[in-house]
């Protein structure tokens, strides 16, 4: 039940950079407006970040390119993507991913 100082700093910093975009437009918008190009750029940010994270999880292993032939995570990602598209359920997607990898590890 302890909080490590380095983890505390990460949480505090992350909370601060999350808090500011949440409250700033509500507090200031009568005075400032985000330019149109800025809104368009922000619009693509979630897709870009999520894609980058997925790619890193699947293809990078300890800073190196994960060998494709032994990459069970990549195989487990296929049913996971399929269930996400079909059911649009986050819980269903996570359960599918976890079960797929568990089964693949039993088999190989």
């Amino acid at each position, binding site marked *: 039940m302890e909080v490590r100082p380095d983890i505390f700093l990460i949480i505090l910093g992350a909370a601060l950079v999350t808090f500011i975009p*949440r409250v700033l437009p*509500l507090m200031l*918008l009568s005075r400032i407006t985000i330019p149109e190009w800025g809104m368009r750029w922000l619009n693509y*940010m979630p897709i870009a*970040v999520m894609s*980058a994270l997925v790619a890193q999880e699947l293809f990078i292993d300890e800073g190196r390119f994960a060998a494709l032939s032994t990459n069970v995570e990549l195989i487990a990602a296929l049913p996971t993507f399929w269930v996400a598209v079909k059911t649009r359920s986050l819980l269903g997607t996570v359960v599918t991913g976890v079960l797929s990898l568990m*089964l693949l*590890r039993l088999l190989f």
Partner: protein
Amino acid sequence: MKTESVQADFPAARVSEDSFWQGVKDCIPTLLGYLSIGFAAGVVEKTAGLSLAEIALISIILYAGSAQFIAAGMIAAGSTATSIIITILLVNLRHLLLSAAISPYFRHLTPLRNLLIGTLLTDETFGVAIQKSAAKKAISEKWMHGLNITAYLNWLLANIAGAVLGQWISSPEEWGLDFALPAMFIGLLVLTLISRSKYALDIATGLIAMIIAVGVSIVWSPSFGVIAAAVIASTIGAVIEKWK
């Protein structure tokens, strides 16, 4: 004493404004969905090595689904504090859009009262509030607090429940639980793609981000890979949209 009883006789003056409790009620349909995500977040945070106290703390003061998954993943991978915070800043910049979009409904309030509304703003409470505004042309401040606080407590409880369960699992890899995080990212990516229905541009942006993320991670560092991919790919996406 006399003034108080007189005021109590005229409660009807505010009857058109949605109450705090109405906000709580309007939050209920979303609770189950976010309970399951919060639960998954708790398990992932626990298996990433966070203590129960750290999980409670991150849910109380960060309070952001994707950011908590990212923090857990990057902490487990040994990323630096700076790269974790910058990545979370980039993911959560989208809150600027949500906050900007609901600001017209609260323009009459003081900056401090707007701050209180924005502090607990999430994708979920934003979605409920925007639906409400479409029906009523106004959003009540008290109603918004009822909605926000209900979602907040639900999230905290779900995270702690997930963490407690995660504690009892001695070898998460055997159960495939190390894939909960990538699976959640896949789910969030797919759901975002579907909700925006701008498939061609979004998929192009996503593929560019993937290539940059992998490339930069190999030649430089994984923590810088996400930041570089996010900035470059969303710039390319925005530029193509402009020129199309």
